């Protein structure tokens, strides 16, 4: 495979040949064990499980391979492979056994013996490792039975969790790079743009701009040199779908970029990845190297005469670089500051050349459209927002993880069916605990109980004053203070504001100060008016998306939680009991049994009283830590 001297292009491999040889070798292996090696499962020790499992398999004499070699003609017992993130991080390490269809959760080193001896050698299921549904206590055997997976429609995410992300041959065997070949050899650039436009694919990075149109605009620009950039600077706190796709299916991103390059006539591309995702960086770099070795990146791809080269660049920790003009500045070696648009990157982007910037999930969806047609793609989702969307479901919900559902699904289905319901502060399922869902990160908004049956898509969310954003869904229970949440996001955007334009730089600071006033009990009616005025002004006058959307969490809180914010300002009371300055702890005399537990536990000795007599709290000494309320068995301590 290595070229004799550096310059002549590597001839692109024959896809059917690789697929057939991989299939032949893989068919000779009786069983496959897939261990999730996404960031979450690795943190839970999945790599150690992999190592011990491999030793055990060999010790009991099972012929085991860890990767499928194309030239391998032997019969093996087990293919022990790693996959990318399967999305159910909280249950990790996850171990899947095929063709038995078993999914074991929270597998520890001590479970390895049972997996090998009972399941592999005797065909028995190890009950204790199966997923148990929190509500019903029912045991589920595999993906097809677990509600978290069963109720999803995984298309983009499907290969994450099945394929070995580090094996390009397996990706090809699963139909990979066929869409790129089709685009390069059978379709004109216009036809590629049109197909994606007809599919109605909209940018998954937050804006929801139609991808096909973006490509058409860039194609129409004059000039020999054009660029494709994959925006993998997933900075929204609470979103990790791009990380999962890059870790689990990096070749889909490369293939999507190759198709985009064909569509606009580019010959060079950049993947700009967040450096907080070391594993994603490593996987995408390996995938690029493997693709180059097979002639899937480079010159004269598939004999079409077209070239495409890909560079991987790591970010350096600036949220604003998710904004496309700031990202371009960062690739050029500048501070990541946005510039006014127009000109749009399609007209003048990287090094002043026409540039298309797409998000990871968008690019990973592109091969599916070309492979199965635009019509097929439109079968899922809604008229205005076709296809599926991945959401990162986190916060106070029973099943946290990465999910993929068609646009148009309701919030209720996501939170209560897939998510399994809302948890209270003690981690117990509680039917009344739901308060809100924060969607779209620091630029998004809140959805409340009245939005539970709203079909989620780009347009309906905009109507509700929220946005899809990058797809973070953080579920919040009744014990969450919405003013504190608004402050949290404002602190974030204030930190990340690049400082170039005054409305964002100063406005976020002022809004933060006003929110602090409210939280610390200094709020007045004018504070609320001022907050709304500043928020509106910052939204209207900021330079880039970061500033324009920074007031959204504040405006959403004012809109949906007006009574809660007014309680802070007027009654000086925090209904969720989270704002320390507003707490007024007291002991209800009729409930207190005088057991003295609270007095003993109080770290500052603020509680006094005779044994078997009602106790009292000295407000001068009390630090409002809340220990007394936690230890009281009679619910006598209130207001903290």
């Amino acid at each position, binding site marked *: 495979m290595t070229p004799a001297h550096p310059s002549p292009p590597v001839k692109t491999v024959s896809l059917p040949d690789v697929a057939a040889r991989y299939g032949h070798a893989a068919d000779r292996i009786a069983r496959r064990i897939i261990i999730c090696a996404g960031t979450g499962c690795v943190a839970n020790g999945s790599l150690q499980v992999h190592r011990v499992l491999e030793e055990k398999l060999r010790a009991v004499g099972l012929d085991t391979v860890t990767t499928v070699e194309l030239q391998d003609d032997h019969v093996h017992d087990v293919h022990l492979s790693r996959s990318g993130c399967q999305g159910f991080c909280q249950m990790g390490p996850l171990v899947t056994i095929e063709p038995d269809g078993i999914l074991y959760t929270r597998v520890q080193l001590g479970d390895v013996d049972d997996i090998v001896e009972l399941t592999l050698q005797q065909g028995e299921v190890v009950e204790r490792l199966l997923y148990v549904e929190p509500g019903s206590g029912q045991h589920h055997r595999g993906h097809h039975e677990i509600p978290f997976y069963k109720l999803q429609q995984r298309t983009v995410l499907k290969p994450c969790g099945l394929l070995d992300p580090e094996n390009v041959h397996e990706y090809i065997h699963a139909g990979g790079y066929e869409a790129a070949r089709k685009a390069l050899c059978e379709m004109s650039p216009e036809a590629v743009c049109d197909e994606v436009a007809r599919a109605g694919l909209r940018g998954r990075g937050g804006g929801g701009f139609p991808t096909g149109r973006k490509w058409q605009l860039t194609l129409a620009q004059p000039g020999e040199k054009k660029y494709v950039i994959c925006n993998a600077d997933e900075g929204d706190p609470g979103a990790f779908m791009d990380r999962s796709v890059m870790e689990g299916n990096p070749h889909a991103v490369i293939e999507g970029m190759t198709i985009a390059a064909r569509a606009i006539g580019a010959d060079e591309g950049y993947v700009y990845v967040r450096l907080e995702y070391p594993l994603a960086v490593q996987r995408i770099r390996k995938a690029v190297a493997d693709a180059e070795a097979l002639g899937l990146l480079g010159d004269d791809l598939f004999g079409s005469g077209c070239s495409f080269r890909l560079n991987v660049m*790591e970010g*350096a*920790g600036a949220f604003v670089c998710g904004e496309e003009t700031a990202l371009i500045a960062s690739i050029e*070696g*500048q*501070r990541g500051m946005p510039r006014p648009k127009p000109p749009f990157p399609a007209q003048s982007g990287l090094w002043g050349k026409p540039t298309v910037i797409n998000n990871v999930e968008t690019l990973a969806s592109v091969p599916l459209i070309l492979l199965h047609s635009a019509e097929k793609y439109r079968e899922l989702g809604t008229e205005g927002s076709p296809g599926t969307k991945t959401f*990162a479901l986190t916060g106070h919900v029973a099943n946290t993880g990465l999910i993929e559902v068609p646009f148009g699904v309701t919030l209720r289905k996501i939170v209560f069916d897939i998510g399994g319901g809302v948890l209270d502060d003690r981690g117990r399922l509680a039917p009344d605990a739901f308060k809100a869902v924060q969607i779209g990160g620091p630029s998004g908004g809140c959805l409340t109980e009245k939005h539970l049956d709203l079909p989620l898509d780009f347009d309906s969310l905009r109507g509700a004053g929220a946005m899809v954003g990058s797809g973070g869904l953080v579920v919040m229970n009744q014990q969450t203070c919405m003013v504190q949440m608004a402050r949290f996001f404002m602190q974030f955007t204030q930190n990340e504001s690049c400082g170039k334009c005054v409305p964002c730089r100063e406005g976020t600071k002022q809004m933060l100060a006003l929110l602090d006033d409210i939280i610390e009990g200094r709020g007045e009616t004018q504070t609320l008016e001022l907050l709304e005025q500043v928020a509106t002004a910052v939204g209207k006058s900021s330079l880039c998306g970061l500033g324009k959307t920074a007031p959204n969490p504040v405006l959403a809180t004012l809109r949906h939680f007006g009574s809660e914010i007014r309680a802070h300002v007027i009654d000086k009371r925090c209904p969720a009991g989270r704002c320390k300055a507003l707490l007024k702890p007291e002991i209800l005399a009729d409930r207190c049994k005088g057991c003295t537990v609270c007095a003993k536990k109080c770290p500052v000795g603020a509680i006094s009283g005779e044994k078997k007599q009602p106790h009292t709290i000295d407000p001068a000494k009390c630090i409002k830590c809340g220990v007394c309320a936690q230890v009281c068995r009679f619910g006598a301590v209130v207001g903290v």
Partner: protein
Amino acid sequence: MSHTIDSIETPAPIRHFAKVCDILGRHRNDPSKLIPILQQVQDEYRYLPEEVLTFVATSLGIPPAKVFGVATFYAHFTLEPKGKYVIRLCDGTACHVKRSHGILEALYGRLGVNAARNTTDDMLFTVETVSCLGACGLAPVMVVNDEVHGEMTPEKALAVVDRILEKETAQ
């Protein structure tokens, strides 16, 4: 792209910049590669020493102000040396609603550091917060150098610190 220039003959006075020269050579002294260059310099020194920044600027033929501008703009770059163990506590939305703040307070308390002075005097620990590590399913999350610890509590976080301290004193 990533071929190393094997041996750049460096004169004796700037011998301690040999590694920097090597990094610059790998990027062919291309000013547009400033960010990857600074990343690799920081990997080498664990921070960006001021004299190195000036040296980089001169080598790339750009004003030192530009290099300082980039180095201070991005959160990843630090002009101060960091501890041997960098503890990064995630304060993304998911971790925040699951009370990551209590963990931060506990770490600050145990190690005697704060937001303004976040490295211990013995240069063993640096405590910082990051906006999201993308491991939201395991919230709250803490990363020590490259090792991810999920579903943290203040107690578990302090146990991780104690294990490191034990290992360090044993050596």
